[in-house]
């Protein structure tokens, strides 16, 4: 028993290095996608202090809109543009209908409102596009679909899916673009001001409503990218929504307001989950992926309640 827990997995890693590399790669790709979802959360949390539960459904919704438009004869790139437009409308609508009237409410109320939004978007998405999973229009969008096998002589091979590589590249570009946006543009600076202090930002003439609409739109774009990538790996369907829960442990590790934190947290969870599942999961019957991320986050929390990048909290009275 002890051997199975402490020695055998490492022996396996050594014996089948190609397989271990493959596991790491899968963990990396999963981590990238978790990080992308977490990124959407971070954007909104930073600017408005709202934990946007609807980020998961926004991923599905963006993907569905894209595929649904294409199914109805809209060319892929036009559909992409229209989807971006739809995310803009959604952002404006959310700001107008949900965020603005609920300003200054306690966190839990805002959280509940985004859960309400989730329900609404599930119903709306299914109503418009139907409830069945759809194929992502990977080829139409010019994304690669093939795979490359890297061989290690007789020691086996590692298979890299091109779409996964593309996902990694897009994630990097996305983070870079957001970084530039935050640091170099006027809106980005305003956004950081809002993140620091709502009142102070208001007092220097920054429109909170505008900022919120912009972050929701940015989160919508991140959701679209996530939806395309995840959709290309499996399907675009409402079952994807469950993946959004994984963002929570990612955020715990990375901190709710840190973009690099989201990336690092996502990767830790991605690697941890895959390695845990493949080398230790078998000991307890498999499927531990469904909760391992939360337990990792939990153990982490017990030792560092403020997260990986958070500052130590000093309680005051």
């Amino acid at each position: 028993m002890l051997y199975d827990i402490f020695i055998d997995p490492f022996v396996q890693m050594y014996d089948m290095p190609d397989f271990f590399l493959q596991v790491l790669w899968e963990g990396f790709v999963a981590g990238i996608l978790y990080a992308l979802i977490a990124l959407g959360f971070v954007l909104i949390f930073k600017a408005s202090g709202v934990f946007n539960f609807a980020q998961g459904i926004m991923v599905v919704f963006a993907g569905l809109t894209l595929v649904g438009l294409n199914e109805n004869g809209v060319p892929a790139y036009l559909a992409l543009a229209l989807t971006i437009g739809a995310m803009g409308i959604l952002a404006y609508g959310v700001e107008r209908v949900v965020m603005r009237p609920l300003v200054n409410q306690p966190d839990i109320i805002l959280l509940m409102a985004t859960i309400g939004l989730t329900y609404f978007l599930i119903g709306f998405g299914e109503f418009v596009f139907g409830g069945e999973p759809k194929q992502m229009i990977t080829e139409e969008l010019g994304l690669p679909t093939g795979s490359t096998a890297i061989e290690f002589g007789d020691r086996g091979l590692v298979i890299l899916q091109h779409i996964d590589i593309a996902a990694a590249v897009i994630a990097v570009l996305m983070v870079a673009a957001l970084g530039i946006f935050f640091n170099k543009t006027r809106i980005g600076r305003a956004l950081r001001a809002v993140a620091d202090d709502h009142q102070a930002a208001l007092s220097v003439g920054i429109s909170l409503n505008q900022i919120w609409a912009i972050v929701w739109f940015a989160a919508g774009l991140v959701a679209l990218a996530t939806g395309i990538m995840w959709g290309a790996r499996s399907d675009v369907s409402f079952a994807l929504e469950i993946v959004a829960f994984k963002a929570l442990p990612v955020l715990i590790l990375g901190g709710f307001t840190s973009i690099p934190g989201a990336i690092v947290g996502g990767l830790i969870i991605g690697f941890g989950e895959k390695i845990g599942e493949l080398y230790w999961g078998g000991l307890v019957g498999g499927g531990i992926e469904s909760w391992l991320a939360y337990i990792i986050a939990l153990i982490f929390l017990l030792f560092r309640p403020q997260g990986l990048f958070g500052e130590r909290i000093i309680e005051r009275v």
Partner: protein
Amino acid sequence: MKSITQLALGTAVAVGVAFSGLATTAAQAEDSNYVPLLTYRTGPFAASGIHIANGMHDYLKMLNERDGGIGGVKLELEECETGYNAQKGVECYEATKGKGALVYNPYSTGITLQLIPKAGVDKIPVLSMGYGLSAAAVGSVFPWVFNVPDTYWDGASVVIKYIGEQEGGLDNLKGKKIGYIFLDAGYGREPIPLLEQLSEKYGFELMQYPVGVKEMQNQSSQWLNVRRDRPDYMVMWGWGAMNPTAIKEAVKIRFPMDKFIGVWWSAGDDDAAAGGDGAKGYKAMNFSGVGSDFPALDDIKKHVVDAGLSSTDAETIGGTLYNRGVLNSVIIAEGIRTAQELTGKKVITGEDMRMGLEALNLDEARLKELGLSGFAHPMKVTCDDHAGSHPVFIQEWDGSQWRQASGWIEPMTDVVRPLLEAAAAEYAEKNAPWPARTEPCPN
């Protein structure tokens, strides 16, 4: 403590709202046979559920349009959305059973399990066509449940038999590794006892890869495990979004597709298409017709789909799952017809329906009459055997459509039947006091 004082009037509001719910029970129509259809066109299983729902609905609707129903009495159809959720399924059941429901088709093993004990009490049979509780085939224990034409155990035995054929005989299975990837729910777990039994008997190693409902779309770990374990064959019991994802993943790890065999529920056209070119060679069991080249399907197109009476996309007629839905409705319709003949009544009850299903005899001649010659293997239900263990065939995906890839293969009845009986006895014992069969046998 203000909150406590609210308890009273809070409940009042609740009860008030609740009471208005009384109005929701509708009266039963006098001169029609009421068939509720528990379907799911939403949720993670919708991809499969929609085609089934369309097929079931369209065939019965066609009978209404073309023949004015069955035996001159129209069918009253009502769909109730379950979302593959057992709780909602029960809710649908409770809401519709009072309207004179003749039979229930839960299309979910979970819902089926919940309805099995209720069936005998409410006197409404459950028709779980090729799914649900395998042991329910034992008619002496489960008079109210029908799983014609086959149980999952029959199916599992056919897969093993087919693999044996590929390997040149069941004896050659010794030392082989067969992987079993399944939806980790009642449905996917159902065949395991039989597979274990066969593994012992033929000496192959059974490796299990459960896929949780939540992980259906994220199976990379399961398939990495497959890659590590290198099984010689893979068998799949998948449904809904699990199927296309699994096929994609199998393509990804370059698993030889001709050694990958799905149950009849993993045989959807969309499922296989998701794998692209790489999915060529994927196999699945089937017991309902392939393609749309049947007069009855032409009638559906003419009377129902083209007439705008259905939400079916004309292109999907003839798809595996659509045809499966049609077959399900054929059994319902034939059950009603048989019941009408047996009782001499036009408007029948659930109890009559039970007799009708038990006396079901869908032979070649009758299939031809229905315009469905070759659509299914002739099937017959007896009081003792509610499944019948009918033969099934293997179909293969050629990259754009399914092709029949084998003849009709008989299940290993000799292995399956004793297990079914033992399981039925065990069920009755676990659920003691399970009522002894009192229903007379119509045959």
